[in-house]
């Protein structure tokens, strides 16, 4: 029996991961997901599946649930990866400019009407723009550093590029027609309206691929939190892992942005809470964050469509309202401890 530092027996762990908590978590998730099906703008309670209206409502809610799981898990896992690689508790897709770039690409696709004519143009535009942004950020940060940029220059150039992207989006929005304006604004606030089937399938494949790559790299991320140099000494190709991790995380974030719009703070909150609950071992943290991030966003969406029913709020408003204070809390703790839970 293991004992903690006061020499009191503690719960047996799987290599330091609390088993009991994981079991409870596995029970809670399906319950919470089912609960979200009971909430909606059309009223609380399980829809009557025998009437055509009830069927349609249930169908719609299930679609929203799938969207929420997809977007929430993608944003959370990419947040986990960015925080591990950059060794910074405040890192997330937004900080690196990735979300901003994806947003700019998607805005261009919407405003120039490509979305209406070319299927899948939205996710493709978002991903291409996000990758270009990542390379731009990485390139600016690498200048004069011999190819491997410091974390600080990465974050600094990420923040700069990110704000340039949002200025460009604002510019495009301000010159857009009233019709385009509405769809861009609605999309920018973040929402989980179901997207066309082929886009949903493509997004699932892309996010799934990103998830598998990052999960496979889990133990390398553990070593990378000790620094690029230490990871190298541990026998890893640190630069390749950093690049691969950044690309996979970018793919996931860009795909999430292309289907859910700019939903902020999920990539920040979920990794922190999951780490506080289950510890920082990335072999576990990545799948657990995917599940908890998906569930969190599904619940936020259920709240968004219920509180002002029958008016529906964009889910991004709820996550931002929850995320802002949380962000401050982390900052405070970071200042006290210099390390994070």
């Amino acid at each position: 029996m293991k004992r903690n530092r006061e020499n009191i027996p503690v719960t047996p762990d799987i290599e330091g991961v609390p088993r009991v908590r994981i079991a409870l978590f596995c029970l809670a998730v399906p319950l919470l997901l089912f609960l979200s099906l009971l909430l909606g703008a059309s009223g609380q309670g399980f829809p009557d599946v025998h009437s055509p209206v009830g069927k349609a409502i249930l169908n719609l809610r299930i679609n929203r649930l799938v969207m929420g799981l997809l977007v929430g898990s993608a944003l959370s896992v990419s947040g986990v990866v960015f925080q591990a690689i950059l060794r910074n508790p405040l890192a997330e897709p937004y900080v690196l400019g990735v979300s901003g770039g994806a947003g700019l690409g998607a805005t261009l696709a919407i405003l120039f009407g490509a979305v209406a004519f070319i299927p899948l143009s939205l996710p493709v535009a978002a991903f291409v723009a996000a990758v270009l942004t990542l390379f731009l950020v990485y390139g600016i940060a690498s200048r004069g550093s011999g190819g491997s940029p410091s974390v600080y220059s990465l974050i600094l150039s990420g923040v700069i590029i990110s704000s340039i992207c949002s200025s460009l989006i604002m510019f495009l929005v301000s010159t857009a027609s009233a019709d385009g304006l509405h769809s861009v604004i609605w999309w920018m606030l973040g929402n989980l309206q179901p997207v066309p089937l082929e886009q949903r399938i493509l997004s699932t494949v892309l996010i799934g691929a990103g998830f598998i790559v990052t999960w496979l790299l889990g133990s390398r991320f553990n070593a990378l939190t000790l620094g690029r140099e230490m990871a190298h000494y541990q026998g890893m190709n640190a630069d390749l892992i950093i690049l691969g991790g950044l690309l996979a995380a970018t793919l996931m974030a860009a795909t999430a942005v292309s289907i859910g719009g700019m939903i902020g703070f999920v990539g920040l909150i979920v990794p922190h809470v999951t780490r506080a609950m289950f510890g920082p071992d990335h072999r576990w943290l990545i799948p657990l964050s995917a599940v908890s991030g998906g569930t969190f966003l599904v619940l936020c969406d259920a709240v968004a469509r219920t509180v002002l029913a029958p008016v529906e709020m964009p889910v991004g408003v709820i996550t931002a309202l929850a995320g802002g204070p949380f962000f401050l809390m982390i900052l405070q703790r970071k200042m006290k401890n210099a390390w994070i839970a």
Partner: protein
Amino acid sequence: MSVPALSIDSVSAGYGDHLVLDSLSVQIAKGEFVVLIGPNGCGKSTLLKTVAALIRPSSGTVRLFGEDVRKLRPSARSRILGVVPQKVESPMAFTVHQIVMNGRTGSSLPWISLSEEDHGIIERSMIYTDVFDLRDRYFMELSGGEQQRVILAMVLAQEPQIIMLDESIAHLDINHRYEVLRILRRLNHEHGMTVVLVSHDLSLSSEIADRLILMNAGKVIVSGSSEEVLQAEILSRVYDCELQVQQDPLTGAVHVTGVLDGVNKGSERMRPVHVIAGGGTGIELYRRFGLYGYRVTTGVLNRMDSDAEAANALGIEAVFEKPFSAIGDGAYKEASEMAGKAEILVVSDVPFGSGNLINLRLAKEALDAGKEVWIAGGIAERDYTDGKQAVGQVNTLLAEGARTWTSLHDLMMELKRV
């Protein structure tokens, strides 16, 4: 003869255009305990990083047990060579056990748990470095010494054959330092582990090492036993300051200490010195002469020159000319009078042009008056006058009894001897 554990053949390496290692060669045998010493910036850490393939050498090769380190796969390299950096931090709340596990999980897939053997190795590593009782504590909450032992345990879990430590113990208290050293010595004795330690503590190094390697300016200066390497003369030159070496007659331990007496109190050394400098070449001379209690004067300097600023700041008596103009007769006469009171005249490695060539006439006057004159070597490289007039004048001065100096340390020693 067996293959050396570590063989470095004429390796040059650095950062960008700045070369830190200058065609350095050294071999370390299996089972040796070697301590690398040398002043800051001499290239010790760069050497370690080059050996660990973190830095690509611009020429030369590094071999681990005969294999080119750049051709080794990273995972194979990590089973031969373990490195403990100066300081390792994690931004996340990993426990000690999880940190040490990194030594085994580096290349494992997420769904494969560690084997019994892996767990055994992790446990043994923690016991060996005495962190087993800390295994459920958070790494970042531990003291510096404990953290260093945890990292050592993680590196030992790689089961390397060579272990290198980069000043990892420099910031530890003496008790923690000895604790880590004891672990290293045990590894070396019991397991034949080859140990390469970078250290600043010369006395401690002499106690523990089979061999000391003294580096300076990217080269190996001398390599051998502590008696061979820790000689006052060699160390004083490399560290560019006066050092004394004493051997304890009881334990045989070597103590290297700096010389503090003489600083600011050698009243017998209150000999007046006049320094001819400019462009920042005089700052170190002023500082060092002042520190050793000489009465320093200097000139002629142009105002706003960095030496003029330094002389002002240090309260040194000086003669100034207007900024950016040639030295005039007025200033020269004043300086001549001032230098006349000095017993020694020192010319720094200041470049000479038509504007300040006249300062060399001060040296001529001092020499004619039978005083000691010291001129920095290498005048040809800093003579910008037409027809190399400065070179001609300096050669005449040298022929008439002036002497050259190259290192400040040697100059101070020579002056002290007189």
